[in-house]
């Protein structure tokens, strides 16, 4: 079950430097735990107290997982998951 996990440039430096990370999991919760096992510290960038940060969105393909089954959203081989923290830059 290989899932392609896309991350922003700001997160890439904590995740090996590539635009995406290959990880595994039957659902989003397992997927995030798998990434954290490979890159300690990842968990705190995305989650707090068992929930996804309110300034971070996770998409399965093009759908926000908040409108699917949140952390229990099921994944299948070939899915793309995107992790998107809020950006505030404009100047």
């Amino acid at each position: 079950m290989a899932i392609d996990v896309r991350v922003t440039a700001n997160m890439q430096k904590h995740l090996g430097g590539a635009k995406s990370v290959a990880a595994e999991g039957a659902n989003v919760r397992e997927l995030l735990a798998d990434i954290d096992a490979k890159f300690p510290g990842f968990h705190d960038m995305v989650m707090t107290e068992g929930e996804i940060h309110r300034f971070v969105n996770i998409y399965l393909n093009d759908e926000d997982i908040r409108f699917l089954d949140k952390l229990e959203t099921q994944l299948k081989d070939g899915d793309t998951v995107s992790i998107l923290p809020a950006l505030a830059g404009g100047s």
Partner: protein
Amino acid sequence: MLPRRKIDMPVTVYIPTPFRKLAGNQTYIKTEGDTVGQVLDTLGAEYPGLRHMIYDEKDQIPGHINIYVNNQEINSLQGKDTPVKDGDELAVIPAIAGGSDDAEDDRPRVGALTPEQVDRYSRHIIMPQVGPVGQRKLMESKVLIVGAGGLGGPVALYLALAGVGTIGIVEFDTVDLSNLQRQVLHQNNDVGKPKAVSARETINAYNPDVRVVLHESPLTSDNAMEIIPQYDIVVNGADNFTTRYLVNDAAYFAKKVLIDGAILLFDGQATVYVPGQGCYRCLFPAPPPPGMVPSCAEAGVLGALTGIMGSIQATETIKVILGVGEPLVNRLLMVDALSMEFRTVKLRRDPACPLCGDNPSIEGLIDYEGFCGSPFPGHGVEGALS
């Protein structure tokens, strides 16, 4: 004391059809004055009926009357103080009847395009999606740009080139040398100058027809609902979360479309919020605590990416004004400049949104000072927010 000039400048004033009966059925009247105000006063003294049309009871030129000097609208010059010289031609152009029935609306009315305008905007006008009607929509529209920096720069430039009639700029900062890596409104000689002033100079150098309105203070819960309702569309080029949530809330309350964009390093985000169809709080319910997401000043930003994202925001603004195509409504565009991949994800209105959800808890603008645990823009440490 300056020597008083003996001869006032003879100028010609064009009188449009609806006013001619008030001016002895003349199309052109020769008159005198050193400034637009003097010319109008001389004219009004001779034709009191005409004066009544040009000035309201407060002796101001009402919003539905535009005065042009040699095809340039005086609000983009020095207003009534605009100097005139021998041979200049003034035109008094009233709004065309019809359209909005809102008497309080001071929207600049655009009549037939002048030959110069037809030439200037010809590459737009020949497109069936624009045409002369669309061009006039652009010229009548009023767009507020929050921030005259990396995103606000290309937005302002392309809207000005397209002939957007009124561009408002919210900006209180001054130009810093480190801005010049990306901020196309400002140049070397502008370092130390207020960004708003520099922005207006650049915009009017590109297109003198644009009326540029400066709001030279930070956007706050006190002034946001005075400024935003004056415009048709709001474009977000803010550089901090505090202002982004404030702009979002104020645009929602004022029922204005918000063209949003944000950048960091090599990443860009853009979307269009239509009130009632989702907002920034639906997308990101809360800002990150300080330090979790770095600012451009802390992490950096690719200068050319601001050009990409700002141009996307300008494009979306023009589409919304023209009513063409499919703007980024209910879609979030994510741009990764490193891989040069553009992807869109769905953006939905969240029924639990505290602002635009089914049971909203936010009923007015919040006092945002310290909202993000960061100093308020304008009162903080320079560089911490920009």
